[in-house]
């Protein structure tokens, strides 16, 4: 029994519908066939039974199926993104080193002594893409969040550059079927590196400006609707807050209990506010007093860094050309942060 593929089962049902359509279109035939034949259901059941008996089908590449036109897919991919890619660069961006190695091994097995493949791998593009992405993301975040400390910027940037995020973007752009690599199903690492290679290829084809716009539109937008404070974990918020206030010349932070409920129950809640020189600077709540104090310190820091829930959202329509890519212009580190340093910034 030949290996049953999904296509065979569907053609049978399709044949029935085609017959129906034909009869509808050509009413001159006396027999009007509107129903599925009696043999269709039992045949489908038998095919299903045999398929179950053979066990689960291993996943196959999309390129193994019919109607696979690699060049057409590449072209469509480029156009879908709305970018102008040079054909050979785009093809190179999807070709991984592992694939080339695999092809060479295959050719050697067949017997060809000196395998000469006209394919080039995408390692150079990956490197270029990674540096461009990294540099752009950091610049944009620094422009969008001028009061946020450098450690926070690095944390957000680190999250955006993880394999998981990049693989998520890559998969939904549709690179999964076009990638040429030895591993199947395609791994997260491969997807992530392919995206970096795409950025590199785009920089080569259309210029750095288009590549940066690509990074802004596809990778930075993963931050939409997310709280940027969740990426950066401040170990001891109270001590950090105390240091910052000291540098500002303000009083020490004083936590005070504002509200509590059900002190002796499991569902005890405490609301704590932090004051400095009798001025309110932050509010926090929690299951116990220590948690509430910590959250209050976090809240005070958020208010200082302007990253509260009602902050101005990170702009995604910034003109890429107007940003200066000065590597040395970092945000202040949290260990040197003080209000005086961010005074002239409007955010």
């Amino acid at each position, binding site marked *: 029994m030949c290996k049953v593929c999904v296509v065979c089962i569907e053609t049978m049902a399709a044949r029935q519908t085609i017959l129906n359509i034909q009869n509808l279109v050509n009413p001159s035939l006396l027999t009007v066939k509107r*129903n*599925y034949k*009696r043999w*269709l*259901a039992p045949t489908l059941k038998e095919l299903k039974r045999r398929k179950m008996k053979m066990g689960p089908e291993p996943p196959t590449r999309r390129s193994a199926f019919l109607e696979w036109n690699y060049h057409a897919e590449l072209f469509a991919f480029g156009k879908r993104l709305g970018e102008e890619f040079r054909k050979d660069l785009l093809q190179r961006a999807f070709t991984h080193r592992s694939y080339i190695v695999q092809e060479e091994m295959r050719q050697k097995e067949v017997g060809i002594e000196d395998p000469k493949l006209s394919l080039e791998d995408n390692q150079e593009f990956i490197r270029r893409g990674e540096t461009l992405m990294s540099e752009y993301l950091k610049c944009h975040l620094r422009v969008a969040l001028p009061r946020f400390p450098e450690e926070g910027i690095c944390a957000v940037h680190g999250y955006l550059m993880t394999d998981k995020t990049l693989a998520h973007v890559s998969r939904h752009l549709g690179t999964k079927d076009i990638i040429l690599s030895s591993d199947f199903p395609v791994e997260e690492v491969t997807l992530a590196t392919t995206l970096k290679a795409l950025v590199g290829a785009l920089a080569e084809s259309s210029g750095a400006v288009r590549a940066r716009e690509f990074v802004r539109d596809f990778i930075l937008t993963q931050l939409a609707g997310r709280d940027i404070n969740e990426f950066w974990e401040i170990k001891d918020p109270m001590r950090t807050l105390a240091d910052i206030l000291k540098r500002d010349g303000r009083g020490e932070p004083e936590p005070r209990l504002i509200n509590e409920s059900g002190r002796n129950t499991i569902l005890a809640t405490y609301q704590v506010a932090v004051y400095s020189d009798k001025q309110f600077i932050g509010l926090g709540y929690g299951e116990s007093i220590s948690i509430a104090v910590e959250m209050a310190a976090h809240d005070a820091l958020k208010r200082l860094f302007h990253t509260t829930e009602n902050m101005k959202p990170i702009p995604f329509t910034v003109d890429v050309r107007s940003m200066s890519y000065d590597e040395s212009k970092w945000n202040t580190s949290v260990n040197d942060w003080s209000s005086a340093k961010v005074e002239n910034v409007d955010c």
Partner: protein
Amino acid sequence: MVFTSLALFVRNRGPDEFWRKRKILKLSAHFYGRRRNCYSIAIRAVHRALVSATKGRKLKKEDMVALWETRITAGCEEHNMTYPLFREGLVRCNILLNRKTLADLAVWEPRTFKSLVKVAHARVSQDGLAGVTELGDPPSGIITRGMLK
């Protein structure tokens, strides 16, 4: 020998019942016992389920409206206002927000809701409706620019 009349005994048995019954059994896949597998029992259960679904669509809307009204009432009471007066005040100010929006505001935008309550209170005090005196003094910070007419 050719039996010419044999062909006349071939009768069309009708369409395959499998597809007709499959439509019903798909709907009864999550029922209990024979009601999900046996057609004659499933058809009755599916009919009752579809009737309940039809009736339920109306009831769901009624339930949601009642829930929204409860939530808005709770929000009003927090700011020392009653729901009928609140509604009347907003309508008179031409703020025609529906109950769903008001309930969502009461939950997620408490300060906006408080300002709405204040506007309604000001309007209701201005018009002198019954029950205003129990609410206390009308709020002072309402900037009307002559729009609370």
